[in-house]
């Protein structure tokens, strides 16, 4: 394998990391609060708004059920509007972020719904405001589950980022398609896959480790 190709693989890896980090960060910052809202706005919950909850839930479901590759193409005008282009790494961040938002929202919702309702009642009995309950009880108690959720998000994003390669998105997927597939360079394809596997392993192990550190539920010291 030529040094030129190796350099390209290195560059593509950085591109992938950049896309995953950017989409993961922005997507979580928007999807997280939506998830909290979904978990706390049902009838009789902390911020009761059952109608809005329904509508947001529907939108999230719609976004979740749109195949990613179709989402990428469908929002090209929006992507152009934001980034001025529809190809390349920067442009790929837009659909990746859009796909991350509902994904994170549902995971965060599930993580928060896992929390024992008794804790919310106890906090209410202490005179906590709904916001204090969210920050001091829900987010604190859900930290291990939230860490796992963000790990899952990052892993899924690595997969999605490879998919945007199919439409000129840049990164490892793009490299794999253009060199490995279109130029019949199976060795490049192999390296790309191995790099992706290693990336996923690192992210997953780091996430698991963090989640374990945060989890105080049943660990004997």
């Amino acid at each position, binding site marked *: 394998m030529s040094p030129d190709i190796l350099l390209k693989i290195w560059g593509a890896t950085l591109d992938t990391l950049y896309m995953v980090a950017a989409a993961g960060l922005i997507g979580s910052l928007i999807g997280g609060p939506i998830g909290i809202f979904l978990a706390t706005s049902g009838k009789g919950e902390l911020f009761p708004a059952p109608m809005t909850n329904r509508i947001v839930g529907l939108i999230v479901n719609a976004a979740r059920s749109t195949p990613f590759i179709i989402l990428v193409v469908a929002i090209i005008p929006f992507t152009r509007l934001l980034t001025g282009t529809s190809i390349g790494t920067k442009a790929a961040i837009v659909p990746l972020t859009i796909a991350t938002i509902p994904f994170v929202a549902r995971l965060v919702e599930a993580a928060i719904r896992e929390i*024992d309702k*008794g*804790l919310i*009642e*106890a*906090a*209410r*009995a*202490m*005179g*906590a*405001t709904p916001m*204090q309950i969210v920050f*001091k*009880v829900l987010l*604190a*108690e859900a*930290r291990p589950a939230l860490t796992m959720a963000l790990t899952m998000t990052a892993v899924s994003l690595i997969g999605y980022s490879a998919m945007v390669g199919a439409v000129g998105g840049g990164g490892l997927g793009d490299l794999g398609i253009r060199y490995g597939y279109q130029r019949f360079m199976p060795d490049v394809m192999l390296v790309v896959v191995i790099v992706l596997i290693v990336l996923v392993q690192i992210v997953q192990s780091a996430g698991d480790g963090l989640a374990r550190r*945060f989890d*105080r*539920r*049943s*660990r*004997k*010291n």
Partner: protein
Amino acid sequence: MSVSAYQAPARADAAVIFDGVSKHFPGSGKSDGFTALDNVSLSVGRGSITGIIGRSGAGKSTLIRLVNGLEKPTGGKVLVDGVDVGALDEAGLRELRRSVGMIFQHFNLLSSRTVFDNVALPLEIAGMNKSAIEKRVRPLLDLVGLADKHGRYPSELSGGQKQRIGIARALSTEPKLLLSDEATSALDPETTQSILELLKRINADLGLTVLLITHEMEVVKAVTSDVAVIDHGRIVERGHTFDVFTHPKHETTRAMLSGLPGSKLPDAVSRALKPQAVAGDRAVVRLTFFGAAAERPLISQLIKSVGAEVNIIAGTIDEIGGRPYGSLVVAYRADAETAGRAERFFTENGLVTEVLGYVA
């Protein structure tokens, strides 16, 4: 003291007053809904330990949640220190809740916080600064005997220790009233006793009013001075704990009391029990004695007056609300002469008796 002499605490002495309180949960769609509380009136004396006992589904959980506004009544009023809880807005409710502590059956400690931080949580919520929190939490951990565990997490503690932390947490805002929601129901009998001892001590030392709900007569017997029995959303009996235990009036109360050890007849006896006597049968009688009677040699006197044929079937000597109390189930010949002698003896000695039935 007789039951009729029971006076509900006057309004000024009451920490909590339920005034004709009802709670109806609306049904959803086709179901009719459910009336959890039906016109409940009750006052909780300041400084008392008042128990509300009932079976599950009797409405006691709803009742206790009305006190700190976790539930709102659909009828009537709940007054806490004279304040109408139902009339408070959210901010007012939060203010009230900071002056009312609550402990729970499943402790409801935050698994992500250490013992210290769990106790500190209500203070953080109230916006207290770190050094003031430190000053408040340390003595509380001493009080509940867990000062050495301050850096531990709840998962490393036993059930009894968790409830002690729950108690310390409930006391952190220096409340005047403590609500206990089945606080010992998840604990074994021994741990239950130690938690009840702690509640008694807090009540005595801090002058804290304790309102507890439970389905366990043992708990009521061990700590409460006053008790109300709730059944199907209504208070069916109330009074000083001693009186209710020694002179239960309502069917539900009797049924719940019969589960207490010492009150229960051996199975062989209760199976053989008949409502009517035939010739040669023996009467099975429960004697309840307290006060001076508890200290006299009753058995030997009873045998002397009735004749030698007195069997002891079950018995217990106990303390209710700090007063000694005994319950003895005896059997003797059911013929008119023996029964007459026995009755005279009971009357002369001021014993409360109840004929449970007859056995061959």
